C-alpha cells in the first residue's frame, strides 16, 4: 500500500482559534483510515481540509502542506472543483437533493459535462450497484429521493459521490444519524469499497473504527495523539491518553 495523502505539519486556524496543531501523517491508498476523538478535537476539520470544504468558512487560515497523489492541493494551480471531483464526500446528515433518485446520482456527472443519456444511465446503474442500493431502487429511479429511508438516502449519497469517479471518499460521521441496521450496511459497504477507493472516515463511534478501519488516528485538542494500525491502537495503545479514551474514561 502506497501513500496517497501526505500531510506535512498542518496548522489550521478559525480566526484566532488554533483548530489543528502541527498535524503530520501519511494516509495509505485503498484502505480505510478512521479519525476518532472527542467532539471538537479537529477530526472533522482535518477531513474537510482534504477536499477544501473549509475554504467556504470565512476566517479559515492554513499553514503547512497537504499532498494528494504528490500534488499540493493548496497550491495556486489547483482547481478546487477538479480536486473535489477526485475527493468525494459523504456528510453526517443524508443530504439528497429534492430531485429524483436518478437525477441525484446523475447530478455530479452532469456538472462535469456528461450529457449523453446512455452514458448517464450506465453511470447511475454502476454507482447505485457500488452503493448496494440498485436492487432496492432500480424499479423506481424516477421517484423522489426524499421518499427513501434515512439509510437508503445515505447510500444514495454515497452513490452520488461515487458517480463522479473519485479516488478518495471522505465520510464525515456518515452513520451517526442512522439506525444500527443501516449503520451496519454502510460499514459493510465501506469494506467493499476500500478495494477500489481510499476511504477516510470520521467517527464518534470507537467500535465502528475498530470494526471497519485499517488505520486509526486518535485526535485530542487539535493534535494527533496516536496513529497506528487499528488493531494495535485498540489492543495496545502507546499513549496513556489513547488508552483512557478507548477504555471510555473520557470523551
Amino acid at each position, binding site marked *: 500500500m502506497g501513500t496517497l495523502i501526505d500531510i506535512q505539519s498542518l496548522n489550521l486556524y478559525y480566526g484566532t482559534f488554533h483548530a489543528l496543531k502541527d498535524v503530520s501523517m501519511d494516509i495509505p491508498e485503498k484502505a480505510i483510515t478512521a479519525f476518532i476523538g472527542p467532539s471538537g478535537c479537529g477530526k472533522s476539520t482535518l477531513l474537510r481540509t482534504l477536499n477544501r470544504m473549509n475554504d467556504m468558512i470565512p476566517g479559515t487560515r492554513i499553514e503547512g502542506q497537504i499532498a494528494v497523489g504528490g500534488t499540493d492541493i493548496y497550491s495556486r494551480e489547483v482547481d478546487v472543483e477538479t480536486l*473535489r471531483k477526485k475527493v468525494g464526500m459523504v456528510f453526517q446528515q443524508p443530504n*439528497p437533493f429534492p430531485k429524483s433518485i436518478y437525477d441525484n446520482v446523475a447530478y455530479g456527472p452532469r*456538472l462535469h459535462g456528461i450529457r449523453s443519456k446512455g452514458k448517464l444511465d450506465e453511470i447511475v446503474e454502476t454507482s447505485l450497484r457500488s452503493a448496494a442500493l440498485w436492487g432496492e431502487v432500480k424499479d423506481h429511479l424516477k421517484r423522489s429521493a426524499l421518499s427513501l429511508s434515512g439509510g437508503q438516502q445515505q447510500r444514495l449519497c454515497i452513490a452520488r459521490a461515487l458517480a463522479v469517479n473519485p479516488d478518495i471518499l471522505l465520510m464525515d460521521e456518515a452513520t451517526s444519524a442512522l439506525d444500527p441496521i443501516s449503520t451496519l450496511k454502510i460499514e459493510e459497504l465501506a469494506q467493499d469499497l476500500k478495494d477500489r477507493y481510499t476511504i477516510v472516515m470520521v467517527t464518534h463511534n470507537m467500535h465502528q473504527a475498530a470494526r471497519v478501519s485499517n488505520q486509526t488516528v486518535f485526535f485530542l485538542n487539535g493534535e494527533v495523539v496516536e496513529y497506528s494500525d487499528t488493531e494495535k491502537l485498540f489492543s495496545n495503545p502507546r499513549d496513556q491518553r489513547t488508552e483512557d479514551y478507548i477504555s471510555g474514561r473520557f470523551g
Partner: protein
Amino acid sequence: MSTRGKISGNTPNPFASRRGLNQFNNRLFTLLVWVVGICTVLFICGLLFLILQKGLPKLEWSFLSGLPSEIEEGGGIGPTLFNSIYVLVISLVISIPLGMAAGIYLAEFAPDNKFIAFVRICVEGLASVPSIIFGLFGIAIFVEAFQIGLTILGGAVSLAFLNLPVLTRVTEEAIRAVPIEMKNASFALGGTHLQTILRVLIPVSLNSIITGICLVAGRAFGESAVIILTAGVTTSGEMWDFSLFSPGETLAVHLWYVQSEAIVPDATEIAEKAAAVLVFVVLLINVIFRVPLWLNARKTRV
C-alpha cells in the same frame, strides 16, 4: 374471556379526562380558531362570488374585444385588457431577472457588513412604499426628464420598479431557506458556485419564488395609481397596439375611470363586468404560474 371494560373495574381510570382550566382553554381556543377561519374563508369566497356573479353572466366576446366608448352605451374593454396584459408582461420581463439577480446577490455573494445591512433595510422599506410614490417617480423620469409623455413603456418600467423590492426580498429569503447541507453536497461534488445556484438553490426555492412572482403579478395587474400617472387614462383607441409609446390605460384604470369620470349611461354595468374580468385574470395568473411547479412535482413523485 376478559372484556376490555374489566380492566378499569372499580379502580378509578388513571387516563380519565381531567376537566381542568387548561382543557377548557384548549377547547375554547380551538373553537375560536375554527370560527375565525371559517368566517374568513366564507368572507373571501363570498366576495369573489359577488364580483364574479355580477359580471361574468353578462360577459360577451364583444365586450372583451370591443373598443371603449366615450358617450354611447355598449363600450368594450378590448384595448385596456390588452394593455393590462402587455404592461404586465413587460414589467415582469424587466423585474423578474433584476429582482432575482439582486436577491441572489444578497443571499449568496454580498459581504456581511454594515453597508449591505443598510441596503437590506432600504429594500425592505421600498417594498412597503405606497405605489403612488413610484408613479411620481415614473413621471419624473419619463414625462419630465425624457419627455415622452404618458406611455406603456413608462407604465411598465414604473411597475417594474414597484415590484423590484418585493421580488428581491422574496428571492433572497427563498434562497436563504435552502438548507446548507444541499449547498455543501453540490460543492463537494465539484460544482461551481454558479452551477450550485442554477441547479440546486433556484430549483429548490422555486416554489417560494413563484409564489412571490404571483403576488407581484397580481398586484401589478390590479395597480392603478402608477398607471394613471405614467401611462395615462386613455388608450390609443386601437386593438393590438404593440407600440411602447402609445398611451396605456389598463383595465384597473379603466374601471376607476368609468366609475368616476365617464359619462356613458351603462357605466355601472361596464364596471361590474370589468371587475369580474380583472378578478378572473388575477386568478388565472396564479394558476398559470403554478403550471411549471406541477410539472416539476409530477417528475419526482414521492
